[in-house]
């Protein structure tokens, strides 16, 4: 058993937001997916206030030991999510975390308030890896900006708030500390690293969104350093992710100070990766006290 912000989880393995669509997976795999659900808590893909189509294709590029994605947060929007997705996600056998992103503090407030009202939702994750269209600053890259966002939404819900940090920052630990001070209950990291690929023939950007986010084993060493630095700085639980593909990797992130870990890109290679990693982790034996 693992405890995360007062919620009992059967284990420490989550999914990274946007790397597993339980509704689509149920279409492909049927209810056998629920019988041995791969995660101990399920994190939804990030939703926004307005519906989004996402970026034009191509959206994917394979890199050495990883990939770049330029998905562009396609989602049904707040109302569409609450009406059609949430009831289906509520059928999952594990606690639900809903990931939200606002392009202004008002949007973020709306999302936290409306999602927070729903009892199917156990925790809310704030994806702050986007520019605040008012200030132009990437919320998650700037401690003050992140603090202000938290101060705004903290009073709006009793539910635990997780801040998903961006690795594209000088000092993620400073951002985490600001989030903690402003009332965050946990932080999760890393989100994807900014990256790019060119068309092999034309030399022009390959991705429809021009740039994208790098993920997979190639980012693991960077993620582990940031998780270690953040865990040393804050007292709230840390959810560590970034290239985790085995129980050994998960063990490393826990040893670096994480309370839970999340599996992202590895889900694409194996839909049961979460479960496999959980069992490899228990076979690997106890995790030493945080380094």
């Amino acid at each position, binding site marked *: 058993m693992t405890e995360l912000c007062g919620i009992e989880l059967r284990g420490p393995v989550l999914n990274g937001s946007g790397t597993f*669509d339980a509704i*689509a997976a149920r279409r492909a795999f049927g209810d056998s997916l629920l019988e041995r659900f791969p995660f101990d808590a399920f994190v939804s893909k990030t939703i926004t206030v307005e519906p989004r*189509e996402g970026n034009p294709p*191509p959206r994917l590029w394979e890199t050495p030991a990883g990939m770049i994605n330029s998905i562009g947060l*396609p989602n049904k929007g707040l109302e569409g999510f609450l009406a059609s997705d949430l009831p289906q996600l509520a059928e999952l056998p594990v606690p639900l975390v809903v990931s939200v992103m606002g392009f202004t503090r008002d949007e973020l407030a709306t999302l936290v308030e409306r999602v927070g009202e729903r009892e199917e939702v156990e925790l809310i994750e704030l994806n702050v890896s986007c520019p605040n269209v008012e200030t132009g600053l990437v919320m998650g890259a700037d401690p003050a900006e992140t603090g202000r966002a938290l101060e705004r939404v903290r009073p709006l819900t009793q539910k635990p708030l997780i801040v998903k940090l961006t690795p594209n920052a000088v000092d993620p630990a400073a951002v985490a500390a600001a989030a903690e001070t402003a009332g965050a209950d946990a932080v999760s990291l890393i989100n994807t690293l900014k990256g790019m690929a060119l068309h092999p023939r034309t030399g022009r950007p390959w991705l429809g969104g021009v740039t994208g986010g790098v993920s997979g084993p190639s980012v693991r060493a960077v993620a582990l350093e940031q998780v270690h630095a953040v865990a040393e700085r804050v007292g709230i639980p840390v959810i560590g992710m970034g290239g985790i593909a085995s129980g050994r990797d998960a063990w490393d992130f826990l040893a670096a100070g994480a309370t839970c870990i999340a599996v992202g890109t590895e889900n694409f*290679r*194996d*839909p*049961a990766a979460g479960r496999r990693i959980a069992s490899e982790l228990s076979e690997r034996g106890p995790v030493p006290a945080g380094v």
Partner: protein
Amino acid sequence: MGSEPRTLAPPQRRSATVVGNEELGAYRLIAAHDRDGPADPRPGQFYMLAAVEGWGGRSDERPYLPRAFSYARARPAEPGVRLEFLLEAIGPGTERLAELEAGDGLALVGPLGIGFRAPEPDTRALLVGGGIGTAPLLCLAEELDEPRVLLGFRSGEHAKAARLFPDPGLATDDGSVGRAVLVTELLAEELEGGPATVLACGPPPMLEAVRAMCAERGVPAQLAMESGMACGFGACFGCVVPTRDGYIRLCVDGPVLEAGRLESAL
């Protein structure tokens, strides 16, 4: 076939055993014994494949992600199923798979996606394949009675894949085998022969030509499409194609689409 021709996949990656890998002109026909998979995938469905050993460290340190392949043939095997894939080596992933030897491990997830629907009542099934797009038509032709199969290839080497079919209409770009026309010209002629349902798979320009021709003549058509995929089961949102009602994920809403849903297949 049912309204949504989809056989469910076990919810994890499993390991099959390669039992054959033979050259077929420009392609390779790879057979694997999938002990733990369903014996009844639907034509047009696909599997995500990776070599168990040595997946990575080739050109540009790739491949890393699994690769999508329509199954070409499936035969019940005790236990499980014997699957055949027709493969064209064009990059690090397909090159690695093309090297697999009997006894090697083949990691797979599937069957995935939605296959071909039944032809419209009282129509002849016209199967149109271009290049490697021939693969899913093989199992499809087996399921239909007396379908007409039309195949187009770049060259005679590629056209060797046509040998897998009883008596296909054949076209090659260089005219080395069959007629020196585009396969769509064969299709145009066949369409004169009365009501038909077109079931096609091939490169985007061919599919677009088929789509336009069928739209013009009001002929129902289903197109098995391709796009870059990372997961194959709706997790990454990477495989979208534009349709009249927005982007859809080809891996869960396709890869076979009613031609009418598309403004263009390019």
